[in-house]
């Protein structure tokens, strides 16, 4: 090797090179985040302090008055309470069902693989498409009434009933999101080594219930946390199905916060400030529940 000739040509280590590439690679993402997430978030807060009507070109500062009127409008309070009720029902049922589905399908049998693939389909299907199919399922000519008619029950037009419309929406979403969370549980179940089950089996943990109690449930503690959190965040943002199926009705029976926010901007033109304030209140409600969950997890997690 003739090092004299190459001596001066050798490439030097550039200490800043790595950092430069680092900034280069994150720059596009950060730019998009700042422009399309952080800026709207701040903008949203700013708007919430104004009477803001982009269509009538009326803009003036009103402080926290929007928050006041949102909280004191019976409609939003009702919508928030309704969505909380919805969240409690849907999240608890879908979490339990998802866990049960996952355990049922976590066998190395052909039937488990195939049926799990079918059951997952509603989770990937467009919510609007599914909502439209379910308009039929819950209509007076639909599938549910067909089955209940065997028991002599008179047909109910679910989505047109103030009593049944909201439970029907709940049923639809439990139907479609359970498979999604089932997959998360299946991923969790796959991380449990077979040797643990084997050892437990030698220790006499053989029945399904004992296996669930002593192995699956404690070892999937964190998975359950994720499932519950994602479930809550998703449920609180309920919109598509309501908009497509009931449009908040009948007589506000299915009116949820995002319906309120959407309508205030797009139906009753002009209350954008009010919408922004409402969306902030919704955001804090979601954040508050999420953080409460996190605290609960810290206390109970043992893995």
């Amino acid at each position, binding site marked *: 090797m003739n090092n004299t000739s190459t001596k001066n040509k050798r490439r030097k280590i550039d200490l800043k090179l*790595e*950092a430069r*590439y*680092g900034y280069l*690679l*994150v720059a*596009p*993402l950060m730019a*998009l*985040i700042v422009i*399309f*997430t*952080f800026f*709207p978030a701040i*903008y949203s807060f700013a*708007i919430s302090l104004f009477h803001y009507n982009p269509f009538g070109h009326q803009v003036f500062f009103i402080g926290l008055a929007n928050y006041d009127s949102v909280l004191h409008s019976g409609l939003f309070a009702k919508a928030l309470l309704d969505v909380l009720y919805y969240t409690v029902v849907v999240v608890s049922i879908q979490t339990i069902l998802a866990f049960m589905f996952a355990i*049922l399908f976590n*066998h190395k*049998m052909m*039937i*488990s693989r*195939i*049926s799990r693939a079918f*059951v*997952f*389909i509603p989770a990937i299907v*467009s*919510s*609007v*498409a599914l909502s*439209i*199919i379910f308009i*039929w399922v819950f209509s007076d*000519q639909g599938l549910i009434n*067909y089955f209940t008619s065997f028991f002599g029950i008179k*047909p109910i037009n679910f989505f047109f009933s103030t009593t049944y419309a909201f439970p029907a929406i709940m049923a639809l979403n439990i139907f479609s999101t359970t*498979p999604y969370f089932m*997959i*998360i549980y*299946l*991923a*969790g179940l*796959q991380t449990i080594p077979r040797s643990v*089950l084997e050892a437990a089996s*030698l220790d006499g943990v053989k029945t399904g219930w004992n296996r669930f109690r002593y192995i699956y449930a404690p*070892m999937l*503690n964190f*998975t359950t946390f994720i499932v519950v959190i994602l479930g809550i965040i998703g449920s609180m943002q309920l*919109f*598509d199905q309501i*908009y*497509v199926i009931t449009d908040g009705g009948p007589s506000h029976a299915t009116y949820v916060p*995002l319906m309120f926010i*959407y309508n205030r901007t797009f139906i009753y033109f002009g209350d*954008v400030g009010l919408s*922004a304030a409402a*969306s*902030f209140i919704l*955001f804090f409600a979601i*954040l508050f529940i999420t953080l409460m969950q996190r605290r609960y997890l810290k206390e109970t997690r043992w893995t």
Partner: protein
Amino acid sequence: MMFGNDKRGKLFRKEKGVKKKDVYDMLLSIGPAKKVVIYFLSILLVIIYMLPFYWMFLKMFRSSIFAHFPPDLNPFSLTSLGNFIVNFRDVISFGSFPLWYFNSVFVAVLVVSGSVAVGSAAGYAFARLHFKGRDLLFYAVLATLMIPFPVISIASYIFMLDLGWISTYQGLILPEIVSGLNVFIFRQYFMTIPVDVENAAKLDGLNPFQIFYRISAPMARPAFAAATIYTFIGTWNNFLWPLMEVHSQNLFTLPLVLNFFKGVNGTQIYWNEMMTVVFLTLIPTLVIYILFERYFVEGFTLSGVKG
């Protein structure tokens, strides 16, 4: 030749692959009674989950616009390919259906490619490159996961209004590209790639960007697959943002079309045509699902959502 050829390669691997399957199967065996229960419950669930889609499928081959009671679930009564062709023609000649279909594909392809390109590059930088403020920036990305999109949608809409981007492709696409989850999936995956492979590349003279796109990115194929699938399905099904953003029929994407078609005849839904539209909307999702089924579970494992 210095060492001679290694004939033991195969034998060696075979030994490594020995599994203790027999032992496990004995201990965790599934008895015949339990098998019957598993079969029964599995099939029952499949029936419950498939019935609505089954009816949708039959309705495409029928001529009646009504949903009759009791529901006709016989696959051979009143169905014909001719009915389907009529329904299909009616649907694609409705409004600008081909354009709407194109809009959906166009938006999904651009959002997916943008999100995967931007997310993988950033995920790699967060996983492997050292630079000042890296952790802070990563926390900023994580913070976006805490802000649900519907919550900022009103401000985003006003922002689009200010930019004059209402009913434009860029207004549909750009706000959808940021996906904190994708960044997270990529970062997690890149962290599992052995550092020595990248060191070897460094010794071979590659710069950090070349290491990323010639060495590490090709090794992260499962992460790319998972991110692509999830982003595609999310964008394809997205309803709220297009509903706010698009005020002109020319920019309709399929979820908007579904909603539009539902109400186009007043309160009466033309069920045979409606189900044809629904089915056409589902096709890309189903095709991707059938091709990449295994990545759906993997995606969750990659994002660290596990026990």
